[in-house]
C-alpha cells in the first residue's frame, strides 16, 4: 500500500508541476503587457526608464525559466500578488471566497449523492418497472439540463412565484445559519441535481452488474433476505466505482460553480474568476485557476488512495 501511495503521490507531484507550468504560460500569453498586468497600470504613460525599472522589479527582464522559478517561490510562500481590482492580496481574497464555494459544492455534492444513489439503487432493484423508467428518464433530464437554466427556473418558481427562498445574495453561516442555508439551497439544488444524474447512472449500472453475479444467485438460493442481499452484498460490492466517481466529481463541482455563483450572486471563487476577467485582474484570475486546479489534483489523489485501500486489486495492479 505504501508503495502505491508513494508512486501515486509522485505522479501527482509531476501533474502539479505541469499545472503550474500551464498556469504560468497562460499568464504570459494573456493579452496586454505583463508589466501592466502585474503592476495594474497602463504602460502608455511610462517612460522607457520607468518601464525598465518596473520590468526589473517584477523580474520580467529575466529569462522565462528564471521567471517561473521566482513565481513558484512566491506561490509557495503565499505571495500570490495583489489584486488590481480590489488592492487586496490575492491570497486574502481567495481565503475569503474559497469557503463559500466549498460550502456550495459540498451541499450540492451531498444532494447529488443522496438523490443519485437512492434513485440508482431503486432503479436497479426494480429493473424494467415504472420506477426504473422514471429514474432513467430523470438521469437523462439531469445530464441534459443546463445547470444555469435549472437555476433560473428554480428562482422563478421558489423566489418569484412562491416567494419562499431568496434568489440572490449570501449570508455567512456564522451570522445566521438558517439564512445561510436558505441562500444556498437553490444554487446547491441547481448544481446537485445535474450531478445526481451522473451518480444515478453509475449506481444503477454498478448494482445491475453485481446483481447478475453468481454469488448473489447463491445467496438467493440459500434464502438470504432480499434486504441483506441488496445492502450487504450488492451495494457494498458496487460501491467502489461509485465512490471513485463521487470523489472525482467533487473536484469538478468546485470548478463548476462559475455560472451558478454568478446567477445567484454568491461571492465565491467562480464569481471572482468572472469579475477578474471582466476587470482584467489577471493575478486574481491566476490565483483562482491555480487554487482550484491544485485542489482537483489533491482530491483525485485522495480518491485513488481510498479506492486502493478498499480494493487490493488496484494497488497490486
Amino acid at each position, binding site marked *: 500500500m505504501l508503495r502505491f501511495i508513494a508512486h501515486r503521490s509522485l505522479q501527482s507531484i509531476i501533474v502539479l508541476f505541469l*499545472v503550474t507550468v500551464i498556469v504560468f504560460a497562460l499568464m504570459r500569453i494573456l493579452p496586454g503587457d505583463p508589466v501592466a498586468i502585474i503592476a495594474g497600470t497602463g504602460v502608455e504613460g511610462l517612460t522607457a526608464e520607468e518601464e525598465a525599472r518596473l520590468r526589473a522589479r517584477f523580474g520580467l527582464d529575466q529569462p522565462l525559466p528564471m521567471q517561473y522559478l521566482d513565481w513558484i517561490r512566491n506561490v509557495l510562500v503565499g505571495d500570490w500578488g495583489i489584486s488590481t481590482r480590489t488592492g487586496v492580496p490575492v491570497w486574502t481574497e481567495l481565503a475569503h471566497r474559497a469557503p463559500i464555494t466549498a460550502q456550495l459544492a459540498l451541499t450540492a455534492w451531498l444532494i447529488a449523492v443522496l438523490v443519485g444513489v437512492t434513485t440508482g439503487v431503486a432503479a436497479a432493484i426494480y429493473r424494467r418497472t415504472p420506477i426504473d423508467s422514471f429514474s432513467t428518464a430523470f438521469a437523462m433530464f439531469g445530464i441534459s*439540463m443546463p445547470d444555469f437554466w435549472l437555476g433560473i427556473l428554480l428562482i422563478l418558481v421558489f423566489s418569484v412565484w412562491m416567494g419562499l427562498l431568496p434568489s440572490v445574495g449570501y449570508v455567512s453561516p456564522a451570522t445566521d445559519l438558517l439564512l445561510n442555508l436558505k441562500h444556498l439551497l437553490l444554487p446547491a439544488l441547481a448544481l446537485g441535481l445535474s450531478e445526481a444524474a451522473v451518480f444515478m447512472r453509475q449506481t444503477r449500472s454498478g448494482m445491475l452488474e453485481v446483481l447478475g453475479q453468481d454469488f448473489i444467485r447463491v445467496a438467493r438460493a440459500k434464502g438470504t433476505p432480499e434486504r441483506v442481499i441488496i445492502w450487504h452484498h450488492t451495494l457494498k460490492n458496487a460501491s467502489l466505482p461509485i465512490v471513485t466517481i463521487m470523489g472525482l466529481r467533487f473536484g469538478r463541482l468546485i470548478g463548476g460553480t*462559475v*455560472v451558478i455563483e454568478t*446567477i445567484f450572486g454568491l461571492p465565491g471563487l467562480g464569481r471572482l474568476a*468572472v469579475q477578474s476577467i*471582466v476587470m482584467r485582474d489577471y493575478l486574481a484570475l491566476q490565483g483562482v485557476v491555480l487554487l482550484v*486546479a491544485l485542489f482537483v489534483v489533491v482530491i483525485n489523489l485522495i480518491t485513488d488512495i481510498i479506492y486502493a485501500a478498499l480494493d487490493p486489486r488496484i494497488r497490486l495492479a
Partner: protein
Amino acid sequence: MRDVAVRLVAGPLEIVSLIVILLLVAAAVAAPLLAPFDPAAADGFNTLRGPSSRNLLGTDFLGRDVLSRLIYGAQVTAAVAIGSVAISILFGVPLGLVSGYFKGLTDTVIMRFIDALYAFPPLLLSLVLVAMLGPSMYNVMIAVGVIMIPTFCRLARAQALVVSAQTYVVAAQTIGTPAHRIILWHLWPNIAAPVIVQLTIGMAWAILAEAALSYLGVGVRPPTPTWGVMLAEGFQYLRINPWLSFIPGMAIFLTVFALNILGDALRDGLDPRLRN
C-alpha cells in the same frame, strides 16, 4: 451500418431526437429563409411582448423577434458544437493513438500533460482561454475544443492499448510495417466507433459550454444572437417576462437531450456486445 441506422430510429425518443437535430441543422443552414424577421431589428413600441400571431415566441426587451433570434442562434450553436469537437478530435485522437501504441516514455510524457490539462475544471479553463483569446465565435470553438482534448485522448489511448495487443497488429509489426501505417490502417479504423459515440456527447457538452460562456458575457458577444446571450438577457426580465429565459433554455435543453439520446443509440448500435 444497418444496426446503427436501426438503433437511431428504434423508439419514439430516438425519432424525436433525430427530428430535433435535423431542425437545428435546418435552422442553422437556412436561417435567413426561415426567420420571419431580422434578428437585430428592434421595435421600441413592441417590447417584452408574449407570444402573438405576429411574433410567435414574443419579443425581447428591445422589441426584437424571439423566434428569429432563436433560429439565428442555432447557427452559433451548431458551429461551436461541430468546430470544437473537430478541434478536440484532431488533436486528442492522434495523441491518444501515439501514446497507446508506443507506450513507455512517449506515453508517460503525453499522459502526464493530459492529466495536467484534466486537472483544470473544464468551464473555468475555457473561461480563461476565451479571456486570453478574446470573445468571438472562433475563439469559443478553440477554448471549448482544447478542454475536450483530454477526453478524446484518453479514449483513443485506452482503445489503442487494447487493439495494439491484438494478433493482427503484432503480425503487422513482425513483418516490418511502419508504425504510422499500423496506426492509420489498423488502429484508427478499430477505435472509430467509440470516438463517434463520444463525438455526440462532446457536441452536447460543447453546446452547454458555449451557452455558459455567452451567458457570462465572455463568449460570443451581443448583438450576435446566441442562446446563451438570449438566456442572460431574458434573466434580467425574469419577473416581467419569464418566457424570455424559458425559450432559449428549452432550446439548449432539447438539443443536448437529443444529442445524448442519439449518443446512447449510437453506442448500442456500434457496440457488438449490445447489438442483441
